[in-house]
Each structure stands twice: as structure tokens, then as C-alpha cells.
């Protein structure tokens, strides 16, 4: 068969649909994104390197990636737990709770930010109790973790839930018949089956967290070197008309985001293969 870009098909409209898709994508996404790379290409390598490795910038990477990692790990364990409870058990109000799990996707991040700050501030519902224990959440790096837990909560739940629903009970019954305890069944049978979904959810949550801005800036306190996340640093530089600095840091973030997107795609392909075979 001769090589061709598109296989024969009787349906019409490929050229129109494809042409429009590519044109619109170039105008809205690709050309503007390339602007960031082209702007940075105007910098010498030494300038670029000194901007993106300045102490204040390095501190912001540490904070952003550290807080995102902690939030994603907490959400992975809690998400597995919540997905398990929602799939396996029945209790009053389950459907309502299931619907509300998506709230962090629907709620504007600025609203989430001020609501969490009100709760976790020293005089808030939760913050006042934590203050008794000597724990400060709002206006510290811990507050950033709380905000990131909120905004990335649904990812693991929503990736694991369908896989748990489709698990066949026969396998678990067989394991029990062969004398496995419930914990052994979970570790040896269920966990391997949901591992790709769990990893996908973790990566999605992590990728979402490193770019988050709206909810974090209200609760973080935003002290340079202490509680200043990388997206905020980009905004700060922009407000000082330091376009080159802002763009150089943005390019570092973009490259990391692209790598994570690639990883998510590979993970999803892996989980799809496992799932279908």
C-alpha cells in the first residue's frame, strides 16, 4: 500500500474540519506560545541562566515543586481512599458527595483562595483550633499545600473511580478462595490493576499544582524566598516591566509542563493498554 497522509474515507469535510482546527490552534495556542520561546531566544545563554537560577527564583522552584509534590502525594492516598469508599460502600448522601467532588474544578480559584484563607487563618473555623496546637497554616508554606490539595483533589478520585468500578469481583473471590486475606487481595490484585490510573491521577494533580496561581496567592503570604511561588514571581516581574525575566522563568515552567504532559500521555496509553488486554 502506498504511503499516504490520510486514509481513504467516504465521509466529507476532512479538509474543512482539519484546516479550521489547525488554523484556530495556531492562532490561539501555538503562535502565542512560540512568542515566549522567541522572546527568550533573544537572551544570551549566560543571561538566561543567571535569570532562571537567581536565588529568589530557585527558592520559588523549591517551594512550588515541593508543595505540589506534597499536595499530590496527599491527594493520591486520600483520593484512592475516597474513590474506594464511593465505589464499594453505600451510605446516605453518597450521590450528592460524588457530585460535589468536582467542586474544585468548577469553583473559581480566587474564591477557593479566599474561602480557604478565611477557614485556616488564626481566627477561622479550622485555623483557631490549629492555633491552639501552635500550627500556623494561612500565610505560611503550609497554606500553599492546603490550597493545592483543594484545587487538585478531584484528579486521583476521577481517574481511579472508573477503574475500580470495572474491576471484576470474580478475581477477588478467587483470591479469597485461595486463602488470601483482604489486605493481600488489595495489595496483590487490586493495587496492580489501579496503579496506572493512580499514577496518571498523581501526575495530573502535580501538573495542575505547579501552575496554580489564583488560590495560592491569597493564602500564601507571598514573602520572597519563603512563600513566593514561581507563577507569582512571573507576575511580579511583569508588573515591574521586566518582560525578559518573566519570560525566561515562564519558559522554564513551560518546558517542565510539556515534559509532564508527555508523561501523562505515556501513562494514559499504558493504562489503556492494561485496561483493554
Amino acid at each position, binding site marked *: 500500500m502506498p504511503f499516504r497522509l*490520510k*486514509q481513504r*474515507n*467516504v*465521509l466529507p*469535510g476532512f479538509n*474543512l*474540519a*482539519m484546516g*479550521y*482546527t489547525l488554523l*484556530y*490552534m495556531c492562532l*490561539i*495556542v501555538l*503562535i*502565542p*506560545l512560540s*512568542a*515566549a520561546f522567541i*522572546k527568550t531566544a533573544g537572551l544570551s545563554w549566560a543571561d538566561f541562566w543567571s535569570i532562571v537560577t537567581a536565588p529568589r527564583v530557585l527558592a520559588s522552584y523549591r517551594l512550588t515543586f515541593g508543595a505540589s509534590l506534597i499536595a499530590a502525594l496527599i491527594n493520591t492516598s*486520600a483520593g484512592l*481512599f*475516597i474513590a*474506594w469508599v464511593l465505589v464499594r*460502600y453505600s451510605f446516605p448522601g453518597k450521590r450528592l*458527595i460524588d*457530585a460535589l467532588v468536582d*467542586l*474544585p*474544578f*468548577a*469553583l*473559581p*480559584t*480566587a*474564591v477557593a483562595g*479566599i*474561602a*480557604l484563607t*478565611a477557614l485556616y487563618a488564626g481566627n477561622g473555623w*479550622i485555623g483557631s483550633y490549629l492555633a491552639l496546637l501552635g500550627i500556623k497554616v494561612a500565610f505560611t508554606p503550609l497554606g500553599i499545600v492546603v490550597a493545592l*490539595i*483543594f484545587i487538585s483533589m478531584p484528579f486521583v478520585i476521577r481517574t481511579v473511580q472508573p477503574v475500580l468500578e470495572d474491576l471484576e*469481583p470474580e478475581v*477477588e*473471590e478467587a483470591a*479469597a478462595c485461595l486463602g488470601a486475606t483482604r489486605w493481600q487481595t488489595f495489595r496483590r490484585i487490586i493495587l496492580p490493576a489501579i496503579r496506572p490510573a493512580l499514577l496518571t491521577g498523581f501526575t495530573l494533580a502535580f501538573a495542575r499544582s505547579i*501552575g*496554580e*496561581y*489564583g488560590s495560592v496567592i491569597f493564602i500564601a503570604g507571598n514573602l520572597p524566598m519563603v512563600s513566593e511561588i514561581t*507563577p507569582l514571581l*512571573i507576575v511580579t516581574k511583569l508588573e515591574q*516591566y521586566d518582560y525578559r525575566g518573566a*519570560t525566561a522563568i*515562564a519558559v522554564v515552567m*513551560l518546558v517542565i509542563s510539556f515534559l509532564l*504532559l508527555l508523561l501523562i*500521555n505515556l501513562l494514559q496509553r499504558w493504562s489503556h493498554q492494561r485496561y483493554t488486554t
Partner: protein
Amino acid sequence: MAFTRFLTASQTAPIRRTTTESPAIRRLFIGMALLFLTLFLFFPLAAVFYEALRKGLGVYFAAIVDPDALAAIRLTLLCAAIAVPLNMVFGVAAAWAIAKFEFVGKSVLITLIDLPFAVSPVIAGLIYVLMFGAQGWLGPWLVAHDIKIIFAVPGIVLATVFVTFPFIARELIPLMQEQGVEEEEAALVMGASGWQTFWRITLPNIKWGLLYGVVLCTARAMGEFGAVSVVSGHIRGLTNTLPLQVEILYNEYNFAAAFAVASLLTLLAVVMLAIKSVIEWQTRKARLAALAIRGEPE
């Protein structure tokens, strides 16, 4: 009588225990999951309304009918009204090309469509500043022709379009891939034109998925903060969307008003979740009905 009861109990009990946990552990797990959700999900939701109404209904409504707040509501609705239809047309076109045809580079295209999800909202705003800002590529030309994009409404619309770009396409692509091409082919063989096939066959088939995507896209379009904040310039009554209005009021320590405006956005989010649940319920019903017609077990 006692013997049969003993028999059934001994027959059912071990089978039940193999596929679930003991009632005590079940209750403990449910309790722990609910505790986590309460602390991180339900409390923030309740806090918005509590803080909004703390100073009384008078303050609440005064904050909402404030001219700046009303202007922000209008701008937010305008942005969504432009961004959602644009991304809807794109989503349908992209899904048609990707789901109904085989071509080289399809997986690359799907990944590219996902790109805006991976980009920080702040960077989404920044790239438009680099394009259209006074220092940007098109900046001098725009200034010469007296067109304002950055720190004006067009920039806010563009940033909103960018961050909501993938939502509808992502919902439609897997749905249309699953549906295949047989129905469209049948319509064409029977003499329908391409557009007739699309309007009469494809569109009714994807209507729930499309609505679902529109709901997600609208929620995000109205709630976007980071990207819009970078390109808006925060001019009161002119370039402030609802989320930006929340920020301004909050930074002025006008907490009751900030939470009052925030409660509008929260209500909107809850309505979107409700619509989403209804759509999910509808599609599940439709799928079960389709399975029943084909005579396949679920």
C-alpha cells in the same frame, strides 16, 4: 426452622466477607473519607456563604448591586458568551477530523489540543502580553492604529479562550471515536449531503457530550483568574471580571463584599455541577437503553 436459618447464614456470610470489609472497618473508612472531604471541600463551600452573609442581607445585596460589581458581571458574561461558542466550533471541527478519519500525526494533534491544560494560567496571560502588549510583536502596529488589546476587553477574551480551549474538544473526541462512522456512512449512501448528515445524525448523537463540554467550558470561562489578571490591568468598571472584583474587594479588606461577589461565583459552580450530574444521569440512561435494545447484558 432454626436449622435452615443456620444454613443460610453460614452460606452467605463467608461469601459476603470475601468481597468487602467488616462493617466496623467499612464505617471507619467512610468516616475518614468524609472527614477529609469535610475539611478540604465542604467547609470551604460553607465558609463562602457564611462570610458573605455575616454582616446581614443588606450588606450582601449592596455589594452585588454595586455598579462596579454589575459591570464585572456583564464583562464576565460577555467573555463567556464569546469564548464558549468559539471553542465549541473548534471542538466540533477537531473532533470530526480526529474521530472520523485516520491520518498521520493524530496523537500529536491530540496532545497539542491538551497543551493549554498544562500551561500555567499566568503564562497564558504572559504570552498574549508578549504578542499584543506595548513592547510586544504587534504592539507598535496596534498603537499606530489605536487598537487596545492588552489591558482591555479583547485581551481578557483572548486569555479566556486560551484557558478554555481544550474543554469541548476533549469531551467530544473520545465520544465520537466510540460512535464510529457507520451511521454517517449509511446516511451518505442513502443520499444525504455532508451537512445534512452532520445536523441530522452526528449532532443528535453527540448532544449530551457537547452540552457537558459547554458546561465545563462555561464554568472555567467565568471563573478564570490568573490569565485574566495578567492581561486585564484591573481597571474598575471596565476590565474587571467577577473573580478580579473578588480580589480587589478582598485586598481592600472589604471581606463581606468580597465574599458576597464570591458567593455568586460559587452558586454558579454549584449550578454547573448540578447540570453536569443530570447530564451524566441522562447519558447513563441512554447507554443502558441502547444496550437493552441490542440485547446485551450490561
